[in-house]
C-alpha cells in the first residue's frame, strides 16, 4: 500500500509540476503592435485563465526563435511561415499550431517622383532588399516580371530610400511604409506593390512549437492557441488600452516608436488576421491548403526546399 501511495504521490507531483512549469514563448522581433495579441493574452491573464504560466520573450533579431524551439530551448515562438516551411523541409522538429496572420504585409515602395509606376519601371533601378525570407517574394516577383535591377542591401530603416540612395524600398505595410508617412510623405506620393496582389501572398506570423512537445502537451498547445486568439480579440476590441500596453513594452526595449505608428500597425495586423475569414476568433489562425501549396510551389521554384512538408502534420490546426 505504501508503495502505491508513493507512486500516486510522485505521479501527482509530476503532473502538478508539469502544469505549473513556466512556458517560454518568444516573439520573433522586438515588441510592437505586431505582437499585441500575445501581449494582451499575457497582460489580461488569458494565459493564466487557461492554467498556463507563460513567459513572454522578444527576439532582438540576432537569434532564431525557431532554432530555439527546434532545440527545445524554448517552448513556443512566432515565426514567418516561409521560414518555417524551409526549416521543416530540412527536418526541423517544428509544428505550426496557429497561423495568425493571413495576409502578407511585405511590399515594395517607390516614390511617384521616381517615375516607377509599374513593375517593369523597376528595370535598371536600385532596389533595397532585406535578407533571408524577405527576399523570397521579391525574387518571385522580379522573376515573374523579368526585372533586371540593382540590388541594394537595405538596412532596417527607410533613410536611404528617403534620401534617394535607392529608388525602390522593401517595406512592411504595418511598419516601414507608415514610417514614410510619418516622415512627411503622403500616400499619394508613394507607389506601392503589395506582393499578395501579385499572387504572392505569403502568410507571415504563426505560432510554432516543437513536435515532441506538442505530442506530449496537446492540451497546453490548444489552450495557448486559444489564449492568444482571445488576446487578439481583446486587443481589437480595446485598442487604446492595448496600445498603452504595447507602448509600455516598446519603452522597456527602448524602441523608437510612437502611438501613431503602433496604432497603424495594430489596424493593419487586424486586417491581416481577419483576411479571408470572419470576425469570430474561432475562425482565426487557420491556413488553407491552397495558400500553403501556392507558397510551397514558389519555395520549390527558388530551390529553397527539396521536399514538401506534409500539410496535416506541419499544421496542427487547420481548417
Amino acid at each position, binding site marked *: 500500500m505504501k508503495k502505491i501511495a508513493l507512486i500516486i504521490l510522485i505521479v501527482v507531483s509530476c503532473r502538478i509540476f508539469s502544469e505549473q512549469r513556466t512556458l517560454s514563448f518568444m516573439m520573433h522581433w522586438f515588441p510592437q503592435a505586431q505582437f499585441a495579441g500575445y501581449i494582451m493574452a499575457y497582460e489580461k491573464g488569458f494565459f493564466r485563465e487557461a492554467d498556463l504560466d507563460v513567459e513572454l520573450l522578444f527576439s532582438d533579431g540576432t537569434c532564431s526563435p525557431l532554432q530555439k524551439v527546434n532545440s527545445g530551448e524554448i517552448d513556443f515562438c512566432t515565426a514567418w511561415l516561409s521560414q518555417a516551411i524551409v526549416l521543416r523541409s530540412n527536418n526541423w522538429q517544428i509544428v505550426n499550431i496557429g497561423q495568425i496572420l493571413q495576409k502578407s504585409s511585405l511590399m515594395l515602395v517607390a516614390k511617384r517622383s521616381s517615375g516607377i509606376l509599374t513593375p517593369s519601371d523597376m528595370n535598371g533601378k536600385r532596389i533595397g532588399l532585406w535578407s533571408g525570407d524577405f527576399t523570397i517574394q521579391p525574387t518571385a516577383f522580379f522573376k515573374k516580371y523579368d526585372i533586371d535591377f540593382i540590388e541594394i542591401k537595405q538596412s532596417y530603416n527607410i533613410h536611404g530610400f528617403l534620401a534617394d540612395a535607392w529608388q525602390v524600398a522593401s517595406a512592411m505595410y504595418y511598419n516601414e511604409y507608415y514610417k514614410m508617412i510619418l516622415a*512627411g510623405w503622403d500616400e499619394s506620393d508613394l507607389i506601392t506593390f503589395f506582393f499578395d496582389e501579385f499572387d504572392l501572398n505569403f502568410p507571415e506570423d504563426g505560432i510554432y512549437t516543437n513536435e515532441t512537445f506538442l505530442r506530449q502537451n496537446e492540451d497546453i498547445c490548444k489552450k495557448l492557441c486559444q489564449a492568444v486568439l482571445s488576446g487578439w480579440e481583446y486587443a481589437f476590441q480595446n485598442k487604446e488600452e492595448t496600445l498603452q500596453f504595447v507602448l509600455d513594452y516598446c519603452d522597456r526595449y527602448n524602441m523608437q516608436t*510612437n502611438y501613431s505608428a503602433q496604432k497603424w500597425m495594430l489596424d493593419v495586423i487586424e486586417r491581416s488576421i481577419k483576411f479571408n475569414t470572419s470576425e469570430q476568433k474561432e475562425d482565426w489562425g487557420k491556413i488553407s491548403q491552397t495558400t500553403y501549396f501556392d507558397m510551397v510551389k514558389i519555395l520549390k521554384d527558388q530551390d529553397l526546399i527539396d521536399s514538401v512538408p506534409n500539410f496535416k502534420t506541419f499544421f496542427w490546426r487547420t481548417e
Partner: protein
Amino acid sequence: MKYHVKRPIRWKLILLITLPILIVYALIVFFNSYWNRKTALQQMKDYLIELTGHHAANLDTEFAIISQAPQNLAEVISSLNVTDSEDIFRLIENAIDNNPYIHGLTVAYEPKAFQNKRFFAPHIRKIESELQRRDLSGFGDYTLQDWYSIPALLGRSYWTEPYYQQDNGRELMCTFSVPVFKNGNLIAIAAADISLDDIKDRMGNISIMAGYTFLLSQHGTYIYHPNPNDIMKETIFSKAEKYNLPVMREFGKEMISGKSSVQSFPDPITAYRQWMVYTPISTNGWTLSAVVPENDVFTAVDAILIKHIILMITGLIVIIVIIVFASLNITRPIRNLVEMAEELSTGNLDVRMEDIKGEDEIHELAVVFNKMVQDLKHYIHDLTNATREKESVESELRIARSIQESLIPRIFPPFPDRSEFALFARNLPAKEVAGDFYDFFFLDHDNLILVIADVSGKGVSASLFMAVTKTLIKAKANEVDRPDKIMQEVNFELCQENDSAMFVTTFMAAFNVKTGVLSYCNAGHNPPYLIDNTGKVSQLPNTEGMALGVWEECQYSLQKITLQKNDIVFFYTDGINEAMDIDNNEFSYERLEEFLTTINDQVPRKITEMTLQTVKDFTGEAEQSDDITLMVLKYLLG
C-alpha cells in the same frame, strides 16, 4: 410726514454721468487692449523669428565647421597616396584635434580598397579630450550602415538621421559622411560623429517666455523636445496624426522642405492657440522651431488690462462718491423745500427757507418759495376777511329769506274749513332769497285770489321787489276786486320811480269756490295748465298785458273759465320748464305737459312733490339755476 422719492436725482446723476464714462472708458480699454495684444503678438513673432534665426545660424555655423574636417580629410586622402595605416590615423587625429565639435572621425575604406584588406575603417574618438584609436571593421560590415551606404550610393556628402550610440552610454549621435573618390572611383567614406547631447542641452536652455523650442531632423523626427519621451520617437507627423491636426502635418512638410514661417495652431490638449516659428538649418536640413502659447504672449497685456480695469473701477467709485455728495449737497435745499411744502400743506404758513447760499437756481427757488408763502399768507388773510364778510352777508340773507318766507303762506292746508277746493304751493329759491312768489287769500267768503309771480333778477333786490309787489297786490285787491284792475293798479305803482328797471311777470286769478269760475289775468307770466277731470292737459288761454313794472299805461284783460269737479289748475314759474340738466338741456314744456297727463287723480300736495321730484330727476347733479315756484289748485265741488 416723511416724503419718499422713487427715483432720487442722485441716481439719475450717477446714471447719466457714470454710464457714459463707463462706456467711453470700456471702449478705450478694449481698443487699447486689442492694439496692445496685436502689438505684443507681432513683437513675439519678431522675437521668435530673431531667436530661432540666431540659434539656427549658430547651429549652421557649427555644422559647417564640423563638415570641414571630413571634407578636408577626404580631399587629403583623395590627393595623397596614403598606404600606411599609421599615416591615416595621424591624418584623422590632426583633423579631429582641430575641430572641437567632433566626437569621432573615421575614414572607412571600401572593401579591399586599402592594402587589399576586406574592411578597414580607422576611427578616432574623443574620450574626455583623449584620442582613442580603433578600427570599425571589428564591429562588422560597416558598409551596410547608413553613414556609409547612403553617401556611397549618392556619391555626395550626407548627414545621417540622428541615432543612439550604445558603446559609450546611450548617446544621441549624428554622422556627417563624405565620399572619397580617387580617379573617379569611390575608395572610402570620411565620416565625423557628433554628439547631439550638447545641442540638446543648449536647446533646453533657450528660454522663450512660457514656450519651448524643438529641433527636427530632415525626416521630421524630434531631435530635441522639452518632453524627453518625444525625442527620437515622435515625428511632427506622428503627433499630427495622434492629435488629428492635419495643419500640423502641413507645417511639418514645409519644415522638412527647408521653409521658414510663422504659424498658429490649436494646442491638441488645451485647445489654446499656439504660435510656432520655424527656421531651417540649411547645412543638414534640420529645422529649429519655437512654440509659444498665445495666452502667454498676452499675459503682460492682460496684466495691464486688469490694472486698467481696477483703475477704471476705482475711478468710477470715486466719481460715484463725488456725485452722491454733490447731489446730496444740491438736493438738500430741494429736500428741505419739499419738507416745507409738506409742512405748508398741513397749514403751517410760518415756514421759511433759511440759509440758502449762492446765487444759483436753488437760491432763486428758495426766494420764490418764501415769497409764495408770504403771498399765500396775505391771500389767506384777505380770504379770511372776505369769508367773514361773506358769512355776515349770508347771515343777513338768511334773515331776509326768513322774512320773505314769512311773506308767503306756508301753512297747508291753508283753509282747513273749506272743502270746495284743495291747494298746495312750494317755492324753492335758487339763491338764498327768491324773486319768485305765490300768494292766495280770500277777498270775501267765496272769492279766492291766487297769485304767482316771477321777479326779474334774483337775490336781495329781487326779493325786495317781490315784497313790494306782493304787498301792493294785496293792498290793491282790497280796493278793486277784479284781477285785471288789480294788475293795472299794481303795475302803475310799480312803474313809479322804478330806477332799477325791474319787472315782475304775474299771473293772478280770482276763483269763485262756489261756482268754480276762474277769472284771471296774465302779466307776461307762463300760462298755467288746466288738467281736467279726464286728465286732459291744456294751457289756460292767455290774456293781454305785459309784465308788471315795465310800462305804466299797460292795459290788462280778463279771461274766465269754469272749473268742473276734480279739475286741476297748475301754476308755475319758468324755473320748472327752464330747469337744466348737466348738459344744459331744458326740462321744457313738452316734458312738463307729458308729466301733467299722469297726475289728474292726485291731490295738490302729492302733485307738487311729484313735480319737484320729476324736475330733480331730470336735472340730476346740475345746480338749480333759477327759482322754482309752483302752486296747484284742485276744485272739489261741481
